[in-house]
C-alpha cells in the first residue's frame, strides 16, 4: 500500500522537537500603555459620566478626609494620654478624657469609613454601567458599514476590558485623595510634634521614593509580562479544549503538548520574575521602617534626656512609622492606573464618537400598516466605497402583493439591493421607495416594523424558543407564536423538545439543525407580520425532509405580502411573479419565467444548464456567459 509514501511523516523521528509551524492558541497582543497619565480631554469626557453622581463623590471625598483625619488623630490621642498624667500616681481624669476622645475618634472613623466605602464603590459601579450602556446604545445607532468592518471581539474588549480599567481608576482615585492627605498629614504632624526629630525620621521617606522611581519601570514590565504570558497560556488551553476533536482527529496531541509546555513554562518564568519584583520591596520597606524606628529611639531618647521631648511623643512617632510607607506605595501605583485609565478612556470615547451615519429626519414620516406595500428602486447607485459601485443605476418596481425573485451570480448585488430596502446603507444616488415614500423620509423604526427580513444564515439568540419567535413583538401571545410555528411547520419539532416552547436554545440554537433554525427564523418573521418580506434563501444543503418543509413554509410566509426573495432554488424562482436578473450590479433582464426563457439571455442559459440550484453552477461557466448576456 502506497498511501503513505514519498514524504513520510517525521513526527516520530524528532521526539520533542518543535515543528516549523508551531502554533497553539492565539492571543491578541495588547500593548502595555506607557502613555500620558493625565489627558484633559479624556478626563472631561469621563467627568461627564461622573457628574450625575457628583454629590456622592463630594460626600465620599469628605468622608475620606474625615477618615484620614481620625487615622491621624488616634496615635496623637494615645501620645497625649501617655503624656498627661500617665505616670505612677497620675491623675486618672486625664486618662478618662483621652479615652473619651479616643472613643469619639473611633466612632467617627467607623462612620466615615462606612460612608466612604459604600459611596466610592457604588459610584464606580454605577459610572461603569452607565459608560457601558452609553457605548452599547451608540453601537445600536452606528451604521452597518462600520459594523461590517469591525470585529465583534474588538468591540467587546472595549465594552469589557476598557470599562473595567476605568472602574479601577474611579475606585482608587478617591482613595488616593485620602493617601495624599494622609501623607501630608503625617509630615505636618511629625514636624509639629518635634521639628528636629520629625525631619530626621522623615528623611527615610525620600529614600523609598527614589527606590520606587527606579523600581517601577522594570517592575511594571515584569508584571505586564506575567499578565501577558498568563493569558497566552489560558488562550492556548481554551483552544485545546474547543478544538479537541480536530486535534485528536489529526493526531496532533504530542506536538500540541510540547508547544503548550513551552508557553506554560515561559509563563512560570515570568510569574517568578514578577513575584521577585513584587517581593523585593518588602525588605526595603522593612529596613526603612527599622531605620526610622532606630532614629526615633536614639534621637528621641537623647531629646528626652535634654528635657526637650516627652515620652508620649516618642510613642506617637512609633505609631506613625508603622503606616508611614503605605501611602507612598499606593500613590506610586496610582500613576500606572491613571496611565491605563487614560488609554481606556480614549478608547471608550472613540466608540462613543463613532458617527451614526443613518439618522431619522426631524420630520420623518411614520410608515403605517395601511401603506400599499410597494417597493421601488429609482435609478439607484450604491457601493460600499464611493469608487466601486455595487449597484449601477438599478430601477424596478415591486407591486403590492407581488413576489419578485432576485437572481444573479455571486457579487451581482442582490444582497446589497435587499439591504437598501431596509436602509441599512444610504444610496449614493437615486432613491429607494417603500409604500411610495423615500426610505430616507421614514422613521427607521416604522420601516423595520413594515419590512420583515429573513437572512440567509438564521441567527437565533440565547433564550427560549418562545422568546426567539416572538422576539421584539411584545404584543404577540403564546397562541400567536404557536400559530406561526404551526404555519411554518416548526410546531412538530418544537413540541418534541424537552421543554416545548420554553426550551432554552443553547449557544444560539446549536442544539437544533440548520433547517430547524431556518424554520424558527421564518416563524419569527411571520409573527412580526410585516407588509413586505425580504428574504435571502439559504444556500446550504439541508436534508431533503426539512428542505420540503422550508419550501412549504416559504409559500405561507409570502401569502398576502409583497415579497423580494434572493432566490437560489429553481422552484422558488419559477414560482415568482417576476424575476429580476442582476449581473455585476446591473439589472439585465426582468420578466416571468416564460418571458425570460423566450428572451434566451443569461437566465435561459443558467436554467438550461440543468442544475437544481443556480448556486451549484461553477463560476467560470457563468463568467463565460457574461458578455453574451450583457449584449442582449
Amino acid at each position, binding site marked *: 500500500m502506497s498511501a503513505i509514501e514519498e514524504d513520510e511523516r517525521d*513526527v516520530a523521528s524528532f521526539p520533542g522537537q518543535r515543528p516549523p509551524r508551531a502554533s497553539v492558541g492565539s492571543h491578541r497582543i495588547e500593548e502595555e500603555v506607557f502613555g500620558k497619565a493625565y489627558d484633559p480631554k479624556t478626563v472631561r469626557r469621563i467627568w461627564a459620566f461622573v457628574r450625575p453622581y457628583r454629590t456622592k463623590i463630594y460626600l465620599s471625598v469628605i468622608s475620606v478626609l474625615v477618615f484620614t483625619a481620625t487615622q491621624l488623630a488616634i496615635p496623637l490621642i494615645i501620645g497625649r494620654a501617655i503624656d498627661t498624667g500617665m505616670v505612677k500616681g497620675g491623675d486618672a481624669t486625664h486618662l478618662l478624657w483621652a479615652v473619651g476622645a479616643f472613643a469619639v475618634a473611633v466612632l467617627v472613623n467607623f462612620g466615615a469609613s462606612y460612608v466612604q466605602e459604600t459611596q466610592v464603590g457604588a459610584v464606580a459601579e454605577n459610572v461603569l454601567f452607565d459608560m457601558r450602556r452609553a457605548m452599547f446604545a451608540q453601537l445600536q445607532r452606528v451604521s452597518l458599514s462600520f459594523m461590517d468592518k469591525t470585529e465583534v471581539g474588538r468591540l467587546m474588549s472595549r465594552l469589557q476590558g476598557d470599562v473595567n480599567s476605568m472602574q479601577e481608576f474611579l475606585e482608587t482615585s478617591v482613595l488616593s485623595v485620602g493617601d495624599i492627605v494622609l501623607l501630608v498629614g503625617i509630615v505636618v504632624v511629625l514636624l509639629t510634634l518635634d521639628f528636629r526629630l520629625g525631619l530626621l525620621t522623615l528623611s527615610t521617606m525620600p529614600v523609598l521614593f527614589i527606590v520606587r522611581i527606579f523600581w517601577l519601570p522594570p517592575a511594571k514590565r515584569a508584571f505586564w509580562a506575567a499578565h501577558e504570558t498568563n493569558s497566552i497560556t489560558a488562550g492556548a488551553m481554551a483552544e485545546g479544549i474547543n478544538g479537541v476533536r480536530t486535534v485528536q482527529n489529526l493526531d496532533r496531541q504530542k*506536538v500540541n503538548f510540547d508547544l503548550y509546555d513551552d508557553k506554560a513554562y*515561559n509563563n512560570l518564568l515570568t510569574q517568578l520574575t514578577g513575584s521577585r519584583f513584587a517581593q523585593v520591596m518588602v525588605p526595603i520597606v522593612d529596613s526603612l521602617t527599622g531605620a526610622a524606628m532606630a532614629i526615633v529611639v536614639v534621637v528621641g531618647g537623647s531629646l528626652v534626656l535634654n528635657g526637650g521631648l516627652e515620652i508620649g511623643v516618642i510613642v506617637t512617632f512609633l505609631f506613625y512609622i508603622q503606616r508611614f510607607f503605605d501611602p507612598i506605595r499606593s500613590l506610586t501605583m496610582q500613576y500606572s492606573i491613571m496611565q491605563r485609565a487614560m488609554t481606556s478612556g480614549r478608547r471608550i470615547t472613540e466608540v462613543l464618537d463613532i458617527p451614526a451615519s443613518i439618522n431619522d429626519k426631524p420630520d420623518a414620516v411614520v410608515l403605517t400598516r395601511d401603506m400599499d406595500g410597494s417597493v421601488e428602486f429609482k435609478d439607484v447607485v450604491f457601493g460600499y466605497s464611493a469608487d466601486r459601485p455595487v449597484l449601477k443605476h438599478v430601477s424596478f418596481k415591486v407591486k403590492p402583493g407581488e413576489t419578485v425573485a432576485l437572481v444573479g451570480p455571486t457579487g451581482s448585488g442582490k444582497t446589497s439591493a435587499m439591504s437598501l430596502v431596509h436602509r441599512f446603507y444610504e444610496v449614493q444616488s437615486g432613491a429607494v421607495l417603500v409604500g411610495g415614500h423615500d426610505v430616507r423620509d421614514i422613521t427607521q423604526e416604522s420601516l423595520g416594523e413594515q419590512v420583515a427580513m429573513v437572512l440567509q444564515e438564521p441567527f437565533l439568540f440565547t433564550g427560549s424558543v418562545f422568546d426567539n419567535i416572538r422576539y421584539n413583538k411584545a404584543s404577540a401571545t403564546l397562541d400567536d407564536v404557536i400559530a406561526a410555528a404551526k404555519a411554518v411547520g416548526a410546531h412538530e419539532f418544537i413540541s418534541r423538545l424537552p421543554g416545548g416552547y420554553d426550551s432554552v436554545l443553547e449557544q444560539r440554537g446549536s442544539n437544533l439543525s440548520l433547517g430547524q433554525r431556518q424554520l424558527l427564523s421564518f416563524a419569527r418573521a411571520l409573527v412580526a407580520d410585516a407588509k413586505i418580506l425580504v428574504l435571502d434563501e439559504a444556500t446550504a444543503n439541508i436534508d431533503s425532509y426539512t428542505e420540503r418543509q422550508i419550501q412549504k413554509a416559504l409559500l405561507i410566509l409570502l401569502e398576502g405580502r409583497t415579497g423580494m426573495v434572493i432566490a437560489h432554488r429553481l422552484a422558488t424562482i419559477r414560482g415568482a411573479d417576476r424575476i429580476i436578473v442582476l449581473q455585476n450590479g446591473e439589472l439585465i433582464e426582468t420578466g416571468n419565467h416564460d418571458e425570460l426563457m423566450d428572451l434566451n439571455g443569461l437566465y435561459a442559459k443558467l436554467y438550461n444548464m440543468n442544475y437544481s440550484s443556480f448556486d451549484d453552477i461553477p463560476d467560470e461557466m457563468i463568467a463565460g456567459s457574461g458578455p453574451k448576456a450583457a449584449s442582449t
Partner: protein
Amino acid sequence: MTTEKVGRAYLRGDSRAHVADAHVGKGQKPLLRITLYSLRHPWQASIAIGATIIASVLQLMIPRLLGHAVDQAQGILSTGAEGAQQALLWSAMILLGVSVARGFFTLAQNYYSEAVGHQVGYELRLAFYDKVQRLSYSYHDKVHTGDLITMGLLDLDGVRMFFSTGLVRTVLLTVLIGVGAFMLLSTDWLLGLLALSFVPFVAWRSSVAQLTLRATWVTLQDKLSAMTRVMEENLGGIRVVRAFSAQKFELAKFDRASKEALELSHDRVNIRVRNTSAMTFSFFTAMGLVLWFGGNKVIAGDMSVGTLASFLTFMTILQMPVRQLGLMVNSFARASTCGDRLFAFLDEPLAIEDAPGVPDLKVTKGTLKFEDVHFTYPGANHPTLDGVSFEAKAGQTVGIVGAPGSGKSTLAHLIPRFYDVSGGKITIDGQDVSQVSLQSLRRSVAVVQQDSFLFTTTIENNIAYGDPWSKETKIEKAAESAQLHNYIMGLPADYDTVVGERGVSLSGGQRQRLSIARSLVLKPAIMVFDDSTAAIDAGTEHRIRSAMRRYASNRVTLIISHRLSSLMHADTILFLDDGKIVERGSHEELLAKGGRYSALYDLQTRPTEDLEIGSAAQ
C-alpha cells in the same frame, strides 16, 4: 520556540514526569492531596515554612523591643546619661537589625510560597492539558467546553494557590496569634485578654464575609456573563436586530441584564463594607479598652508605659494578619471544592487508550472491514448501530446515506476509534483497530468532519495542522485539490492570512474545503467524508472529487451525505436506517430495486411544482 528561555532547566524538569505525577496522593481528601502534591517541592516548601516561622517571631519581637526602648527612654532621667544612651543605641541597633531580618525572611516566605504555587500551577496545567487531549469523544460529549475551561483556569488556580494562601498563612497566623497571645498573657493576663478580644470577632466576621462573597461571586459571574452574552449576540446578530428594528428591545434586554449584575455588585460591596467597618471598629474598641485599663495600671504603678506601648503596637501588628483569616478560611474552602473537581478530572479513566504493548497498524492492501458492528452510546438504551457489516477495498468509494439519526456519523467515528464498538469488530487489513496503536491508526484514517474547528493562525498552519512538517508544495497541492487555492491567493496575505476567531472568517463552504485540504495533507489510507460537503456547491464538489481521484487512487473513500449527488457515483451505496443497512448496491442497482433509495432519489430530483411560490397564493 520563540518563547523558550535557556537555562534554569531544573525548574522545568521532565514535562512527561509532571503529567505522571498528577496521581500523587490519589485517593486522599483534596486538601491533603494538594498538600502532598505541593510538597513535591520539598526545598522551596521548607524554606517558605521556615522563613514564615522566623519572620513571624521577628515580627513579634518588635513591639517588645519598642516597649523596652520606651521604658529606657523614660528611665533615662533617673539612670543618667552615660549608660542610658549606650543602652538606647543598643536597642536601636537591635530594632534595626530585627526589622531588616524580618524584611528578608518575609521576602523568602512570600517568594518561596508563591514559587511553590507557580511551580505546582505549571505542572498541573501540563497534566490538565494532557488529559484534555487524551480523553475520548464520549467524555467530551457529556462535558461542556465552558466547564472544562473554568476548571483549567479557576479550579486550577484555587488548587495552585492553596500552599501560599492556605498552608503558609496558617503557619503564619498560628505563630503570630499563638506565640503573641502567650507573650501578652504571660505579661499581663487581663490586658492580654483585652488586646486579643478583637481577634475572635474579626476572625469570625472576615470568614463569614469571605465565604459569602465567594458564594455570591459565582452568581455574579453568571450575571456578568449573561450580560456579556446579550452584548455579544447583539453585535454578532446586528443585522437581525436592525432588520426587526429591535434596537430599543435589545437595549431593554441589556438594561435588564445589566441591572441584575449591578444590583448584585452593590450587594457585594455592602457585604464587604459592613464587615470591614465592623472589623475596624472592634479593633479600635479593643484598643480603647487596653488604653483605659492599661493607663490605669500605669497610674497605679503596676505597669510601665513601655509595656503599654508594646501592647498597643502589638495590636497594630496583629491587625492585618487577623483580618486575613477570612482569606485563609476561604482558601481552604476554595481549594477543597476546586481540588475535588480538578483531581476527579485528572483521575478520570481514559475510555480509549492503547492496550499495553500493541503494535502499530501496518497498512498493506488497504482493506477496511466492518464485521457485525454494534454500537450503543453510553447511557442510551437503544443501539445506534445494530449489526453493520461491509467491506471496502483500496480504490473503492462507499457511499452511506440515511435519515438524520440513522447512525451515519457514528459509523464514521468508530473507524479511528473516537468511540469503541460495543460488539463486532472493525479491521484494516485484518488488524482489529482496537489492537493497534492509536497514533498509527489515526494517521491512517482521516475523518473530514462536517464542522471542523478552525485554529486562529495562518491558513497554511491550519492546512498543515496534522503534519506541521509538511512541505509547502504539499500544502498547496492539497489546497488546490480542495478547490481552495484560488480563494487563498485572493486573500490579503494569501497562505499567511490569519483565519479563525480572530482573523478572517471563512464561510461554511470554505471551512469545509479547508478541512478537506487538511486531511489530504495526511495522505491517509482511509478517508471518510462525514457530511463534509454539505455547504459546498455541487459544482465545486465535483471538481474536488475529480482532483482527489488524481491525487491518490488507491485509498478507501467513505462518503456520508444526505445529498445523493455527492455519493451516487460511489461503487457501493449503503442505505442506513435505524442502525441497520437496509439496502446496498450501486446507484443503478438501487434505483432499479425501487426501494427506499429510489424514493429518496425521486424526492430530491422530482420537479417540485406543487411547491412553487405561486401555487398557494393562486
